[in-house]
């Protein structure tokens, strides 16, 4: 299990506790395997949909540097998602390919959180959405390094290096926009207020998540929830932004119940593969 130190700069320890290896028989059970696949989709679809959202910005960034940065981040996410989908395809052991998983599912079959499908309303929204996700993602990948599953450990070690760059980028911009001009502040505050209701879902656990947490494959993110909000609120304060007071949070994406935006994303993303089936780069 991951531990959280009490010092001011809290780190998720990844060396203190020895890793418990997954019992090789574990995946012989059909139920376990399906849970693992569903769990992986819940993780990976976040990268796919956020990567797609960021990709939409290619050539549309506010100026050259953020434009390049956002598409770089998109590329990292799409790269990571490929590894997850390849692993799922391997687990399925049939003819399914990573492309089938990415492009040929129906809306209800995608398990990403609602946060990542929210539109690129303006640069403020893009940055806030990214920051809310990046803080979570880095904590998640840190904790996933303790997974009982060897492949997931490898992906976590690989992904966290990139995730730290992402968090630095979105955090820096959030500070700059919040503590910037009156205009940038009011707009980024609006984004914070609007997107805040989607943060809680990051910690929502599905049946597959619970099964994988019990098996030691998945970290129990609920344990890190307090730390997440502490970190996010600390940066919002530095950015001179108000922390929203919300009682009601939105969820559903992880169960396949998406917002009205999801269909449009898929229509755009799946167009090529559905028009020219089995097309390859």
């Amino acid at each position: 299990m991951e531990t959280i130190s009490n010092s001011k700069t809290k780190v998720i320890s990844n060396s203190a506790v020895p890793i418990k290896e997954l019992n090789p028989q574990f995946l012989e059970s059909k139920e376990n395997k399906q849970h693992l696949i569903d769990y992986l989709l819940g993780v990976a679809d976040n990268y796919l949909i956020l990567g797609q959202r960021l990709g939409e910005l290619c050539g549309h960034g506010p100026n050259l540097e953020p434009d390049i940065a956002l598409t770089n981040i998109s590329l990292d996410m799409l790269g990571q998602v490929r590894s997850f989908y390849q692993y799922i395809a391997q687990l399925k052991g049939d003819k399914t390919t990573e492309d089938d998983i990415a492009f040929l599912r129906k809306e209800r079959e995608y398990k990403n959180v609602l946060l990542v499908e929210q539109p690129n309303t303006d640069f403020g929204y893009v940055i806030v959405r990214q920051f809310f996700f990046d803080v979570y993602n880095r904590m998640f990948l840190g904790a996933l390094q303790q997974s009982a599953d060897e492949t997931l450990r490898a992906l976590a070690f690989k992904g966290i290096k990139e995730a730290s760059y992402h968090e630095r980028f979105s955090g820096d911009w959030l500070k700059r926009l919040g503590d910037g001009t009156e205009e940038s502040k009011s707009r980024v505050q609006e984004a914070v207020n609007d997107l805040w209701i989607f943060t809680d879902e990051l910690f929502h656990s599905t049946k597959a998540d619970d099964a994988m947490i019990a098996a030691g494959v998945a970290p129990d993110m609920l344990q890190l929830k307090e730390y997440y909000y502490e970190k996010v609120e600390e940066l919002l304060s530095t950015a001179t932004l108000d922390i929203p007071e919300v009682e009601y949070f939105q969820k559903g994406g992880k169960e396949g119940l998406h917002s009205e935006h999801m269909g449009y994303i898929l229509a755009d993303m799946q167009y090529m593969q559905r028009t020219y089936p089995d097309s390859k780069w």
Partner: protein
Amino acid sequence: MTNNSSSNSSSNSSSSRMANQVFGSLPKSVVAILETVKDPEIPVLNVVDLGVIREVIVEGKEITIKLTPTYSGCPAMDVIGDDLERAFAVHGYSTTVQLIMSPPWTTDWITDRGRKALEEYGVAAPLEETADKDVLLNDKKLVKCTNCGSQNTKLVSQFGSTACKAMFQCEDCLEPFDYFKCLK
């Protein structure tokens, strides 16, 4: 330039140790073929110097190459895989390329020859980890301009034309240049 030299020496031991492990027992002709395959984004850097070749198994005319990606989404990896197959096919080998994730690639595995080639090409070689953080937060001036050698350089953007690079500019000669980000 203490930082730069210390980073050089640390990468030196790590990259040469790895190179020995991977290439030590291979026929020279095989290494020579490997060296003809370049990173398509940085054509002065071959795959050996880039440190992405983790294992090579030669069985007669069949060769298995285990490759580790630099950045997850780097489109160069697919191209490198194809290029390896093509390069070995010319010499009558059939090649299987496998991507392996663990342990993850680090810029420490770029060889000294590779670092030199980068610098000559106009891309500043990665500093060691702490120094890299300092320059990417724009706290310290440690990256040397690839044009005039001045250390009076500033970060323009943490992200550059490819996933592995950041954009810098020299404040003395005004040359804009790429910096290869440290990945550890």
